[in-house]
């Protein structure tokens, strides 16, 4: 009997065991025979006995006498895809109004920052042109306008930083979701 034939037969005989027990035993003996190497293969197989004998010992270890049906199917990756996609769609539908609201708010914030900066810039320029005519008053207005310009820049910058962070967070979230769907 070759190593492959032995392992295949052994796996068949362990089919009635819970997945964990079967996987534990198969991994152990598969790796064991790999480590032994082709030169020791026949000696090890001879010492292990027949697949039936080894399977009986593995059943005893698992506390499950041979032939008793305690079968649980191994979780195959991707076997829950459809249900999980449905869950994601449902959550998206429910969360949509809230998300749209948040999006609107973020948009408003962004616009506010840009408008502030623009207004500040325009007023600064205009008031500087009025210095000849209005003197100190124009200077005061210029100063205030500059402050508004500065605030607008910082505000917009802050929104920009937050948006980039949110994007990165969203991208990671999507990747995790994809992995979960295909688990």
């Amino acid at each position, binding site marked *: 009997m070759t190593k492959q034939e032995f392992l295949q037969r052994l796996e068949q005989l362990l089919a009635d065991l819970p997945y964990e027990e079967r996987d534990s035993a198969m991994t152990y003996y598969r*790796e064991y025979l790999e480590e032994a190497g082709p030169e020791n293969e026949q000696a090890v197989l001879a010492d292990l006995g027949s697949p039936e004998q080894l399977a009986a010992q593995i059943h005893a270890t698992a506390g499950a006498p041979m032939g008793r049906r305690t079968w649980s199917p191994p979780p195959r990756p991707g076997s829950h895809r459809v249900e999980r996609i449905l869950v994601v769609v449902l959550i998206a539908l429910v969360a949509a109004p809230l998300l749209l609201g948040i999006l609107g708010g973020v948009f408003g914030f962004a616009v506010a920052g840009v408008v502030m900066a623009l207004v500040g810039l325009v007023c600064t320029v205009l008031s500087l042109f009025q210095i000849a005519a209005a003197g100190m008053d124009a200077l005061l207005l210029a100063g205030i306008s500059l402050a508004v310009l500065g605030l607008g820049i910082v505000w917009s910058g802050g929104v920009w930083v937050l948006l980039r962070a949110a994007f990165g967070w969203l991208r990671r979230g999507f990747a995790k979701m994809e992995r979960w769907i295909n688990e």
Partner: protein
Amino acid sequence: MAFNTGAALLDALVLSVASNEDTYGYKITQDVRHVMAVSESTLYPVLRRLQKDGCLETYDQAYAGRNRRYYHITEQGRGQLARYRQEWLEYEKKVHTVLFNEVES
């Protein structure tokens, strides 16, 4: 070894080997074989039982393009090993007194 190796003694030997360094099925079998004749399948039940009892935990690590499942002794396992060692010392002493006729009768 001429004496029968009970299950508890095998548990103790496996835990002791694992306490030195993380090991895998084939290697620990060869290590134990230096001391006593065990078959290629003797240690799987021992390792599996110790794992289920929480004395060992496993992790997989790639080696030369294939996978190796390593066994690592837990804190609980170390405690159990200490108890086994203590019991062995007492047992050894008692056997010695009888075997070498040192009993006061």
